[in-house]
């Protein structure tokens, strides 16, 4: 990363000799493993609502989390005090929590510092004047309101963060990463005879302010405005089973929920996944190849190292419909005596890592996307999905459609009001019967699990699911 030169050198968040002492302290009560995760994050955000820039916010979060593992028990403590004394006290607390008899004295030998940069930041957001960030909000506001008098409200948000992390453990792992994220979102309200409707667009990348050279916030605002205007005429969504065509880059959340979470080794290990014991079996349509890839440069879920210090990597989870691997973190990989996969992530220094996705996507098929719509006599075309959630044990999952249309006689026709879709993961994966050749990544996501949110990306080409339950109110 080009911004490293001016603001970061190896391990200067905390000196290496202090880290070695803290790790040794962590093992003093007999634990076989200790780890320190140090974070220093600066963020800037700005929000506009009702035509006014409400405020610019500057944030600073800095601290360390110390994890100690003894047998099946993990002890964890965190502190915002990065002095040697503060870190040793946290290590002592974590060690006490994972006490396993008398541990004796340990000497920790750290490897040379590992860096594995995958993102290329050209313009560090910290070098950009706040006025330029605020100007984006005002441009988006004006653009959305210029579209139609029916647009009655606009809110827009800008955010950037610069997070430096350093991870070291008693096995010698010693890794660092500098993570930049830049985010923009706009949401609008339109009003008409049938009430109010909303439109939304967002973008987020692991690059700097140059993201706005390639993406125009005015175009985003106009897309959001047009979405809301179209929905003013929307009729209630259908109720019941129908074919569903999902536009490129708008439906990755389907795979995130239908199988992504179910392929996380912590859930599999506890028998809380419908995909447990299915390795090597056909779990999806042979059209489906599903990949989780933390190295996709610039994408929202891209990371140089994961939050356990393991380099990010590309993992093939499903290949031509066959389950080829789960995603792994340190604890679950250790238990199965296999390598980690770069999927150990945490929200902040105050949280324990667990198995998480990075950028999860389905690779291209061969169909022309227009042919997929033409081949569908009666169904629903989803142009934009919202969030979703899944019960990994049963496989039942939902996701919301925020922009959708009817398909009648092979053509996209009337707009539909918002609703959830519901399906069962393994069934929906098998019911994917057409896959397009127009792969695209989708909007930035924030994935929640066990109370922690981490940034994730997703993507897919246009595709069709033979039948899914649409949760509308129309017959």
């Amino acid at each position, binding site marked *: 990363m080009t911004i490293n030169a001016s603001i970061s050198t190896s391990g200067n968040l905390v000196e290496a000799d202090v880290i070695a002492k803290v790790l040794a302290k962590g093992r003093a009560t007999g634990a076989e493993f200790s780890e320190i995760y140090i974070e220093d994050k600066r963020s800037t955000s*700005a929000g506009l609502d009702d035509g*006014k*820039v*409400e*405020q*610019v*916010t*500057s*944030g*600073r*979060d*800095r601290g360390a989390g110390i994890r100690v593992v003894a*047998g099946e*028990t*993990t*002890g*964890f*403590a965190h*502190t*915002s005090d990065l002095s040697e004394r503060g870190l040793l006290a946290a290590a002592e607390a*974590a060690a006490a*929590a*994972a006490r396993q008899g008398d541990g004796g004295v340990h000497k920790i030998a750290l490897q040379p510092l590992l860096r594995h940069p995958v993102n290329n930041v050209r313009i560090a957001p910290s070098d950009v004047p*706040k*006025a330029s960030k605020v100007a984006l909000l005002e441009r988006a506001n004006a653009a959305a309101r210029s579209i139609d008098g029916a647009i*009655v*409200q606009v809110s827009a948000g800008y955010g950037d963060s610069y997070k430096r992390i350093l991870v070291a453990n008693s096995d010698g792992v010693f890794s660092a990463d500098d993570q930049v994220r830049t985010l923009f979102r706009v949401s609008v*309200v339109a*009003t008409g005879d049938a*009430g*109010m*409707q*909303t439109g939304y667009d967002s973008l987020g990348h692991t690059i700097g302010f140059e993201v706005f050279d390639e993406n125009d916030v005015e175009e985003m605002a106009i897309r959001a405005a047009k979405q809301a205007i179209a929905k003013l005429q929307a009729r209630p*969504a259908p*109720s*019941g*089973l129908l074919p569903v065509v999902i536009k490129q880059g708008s439906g990755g959340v389907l795979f995130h929920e239908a199988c992504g979470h179910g392929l996380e080794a912590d859930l599999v290990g*506890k*028998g*809380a996944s419908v995909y447990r014991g299915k390795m090597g079996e056909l779990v999806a349509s042979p059209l489906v190849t599903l990949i989780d890839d933390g190295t996709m440069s610039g994408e929202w879920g891209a990371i140089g190292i994961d939050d356990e210090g393991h380099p990010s990597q590309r993992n093939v989870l499903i290949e031509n419909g066959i389950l080829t691997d789960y995603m792994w973190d340190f604890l679950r990989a250790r238990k199965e005596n296999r390598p980690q996969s770069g999927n150990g992530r945490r929200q902040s220094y*105050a949280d324990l890592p667990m198995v998480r996705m990075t950028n999860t996507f389905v690779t291209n098929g061969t169909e022309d996307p227009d042919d997929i719509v033409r081949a569908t006599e009666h169904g629903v075309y989803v142009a934009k999905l*919202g969030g*979703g959630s899944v*019960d990994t*044990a*049963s496989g*039942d*999952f*939902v996701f*919301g459609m925020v922009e959708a249309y009817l398909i009648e006689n092979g053509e996209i026709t009337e707009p539909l*009001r*918002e*609703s*959830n879709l*519901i399906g069962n993961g393994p069934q929906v994966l098998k019911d994917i019967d057409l896959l397009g050749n127009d792969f695209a990544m989708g909007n930035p996501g924030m994935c929640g699990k066990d109370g922690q949110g981490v940034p994730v990306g997703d993507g897919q080409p246009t595709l069709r699911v033979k039948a899914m*339950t*649409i*949760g*509308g*109110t129309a017959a």
Partner: protein
Amino acid sequence: MSIGSGNSSSNSVPDLQAIVDRVVAKASKGEQIEAYVSRGGETAVRVYEGEVEHFVSAQSEGVGIRVIKDGRTGFAYAGTLDADAIAEVLADARDNVAFGTPDEYAGLAEPDGVAQIPQKFWDDELAGYATADKISLTKELEKLTLGMDSRVRVEESNYDDGWGEVAVATTTGIRESGRGNSCYVSVSTLADDGDETQTGFSFSVGDSPNEFNLPKAAREAAERATRLLGAVKPPSKRTTVVLDPYVTSQFLGVLSSTLNGENVSKGRSFFADKLGETVADPRITLVDDPTNPLAYTATDIDGEGLAARRNVLIENGVLKMFVQSSYSARRTGTKSTGNATRGGFGGTPGVGCLAMQLQPGTQSQEELIKGVDDGVWIQMVQGLHSGVNPISGDFSTGASGMMIRNGAVAEPVREFTIASTLQRMLLDIVAIGGDIDWLPSRAVGLTLVIRDVTMSGQ
């Protein structure tokens, strides 16, 4: 967690109060400053298969400073109470002022003379509860749950507690501090039958661990999962839904944003022009009352330091008022209703309901189900964040539960949705249970019966 304020000396936090007082004293002429600091700790125990899977013991602290000058607002925060960092935060907040748009309504709350209603937020028994006892009761919960049914496995058994201290001061004369602590246990279950697995959960809350009802939590978590074994996807039709108390609480939570005075004034609520009109069945009286000590989110002050109070939002079906912070009140020419919300030191106050309660009916859930010829008892909803739009009112969520036929509970059903609009659902409420459940949420639970909802399945 509820944080009490400092009316009584035993409850105030002098060292934090001194920090915010010092920040506010630095205000220059024409500058309004608000300083908010907090400090807290948590313990989390998770047990799996009889062993402690993790034990988390952590402390955190932070400061947030808001500066307003000439109608422009700037804000900054940091996760530390280090004196140098606080000075940097004040400097950042002042620097950020220049980029806000002047807003004639921008400003801080001013003391309004409304008296606080004292409550108890600190429990000495919890504060002194031994670590070993926290671990053993988490193990006990797992054991009790496993003992309920041979088909049940426990995915995790958890104990969580936390304590917090806050202080806030402003140049407009707000000066409050207080502390509080709280605890709960929760358990997640899996029930197996052949290839099929269903999930359940439950929890128990109390001022101290001595108030937990572990057998009840264990039984509920086991029943929630086993009841759904063999569940089928139901046919699509219009029907009556009986919402379990936990689901009703989530439903009320969605309604909260429509009653928010800031959303109303910015054109984001379908209730905007409905004050004084009938918006719900006449059986419905909805209050927001954080002064009720039974409410999990009970508090004596709001996010700006004004006294919390009881507000009647809907009375016998008629919309009476919206909730306001000092900012939304200035925008709308009303007064703060003590409903500023605050997510911690990292954010500025918003507006919201603090402790929503429906006036209960008299019937038990069993009696209400008996009164339904044909319907579905909804035990869980999924996707409230993705299929419900509180601005348009569109409502659609995934669900699971039990069919009701001729007043009797019939087969389990799953993988379906229930849909209507929020506007219609309020008018279509046909019965309200007397089974109040003070859940760990901003809205109370009780059984609610709503007619004419679309169920989508096969």
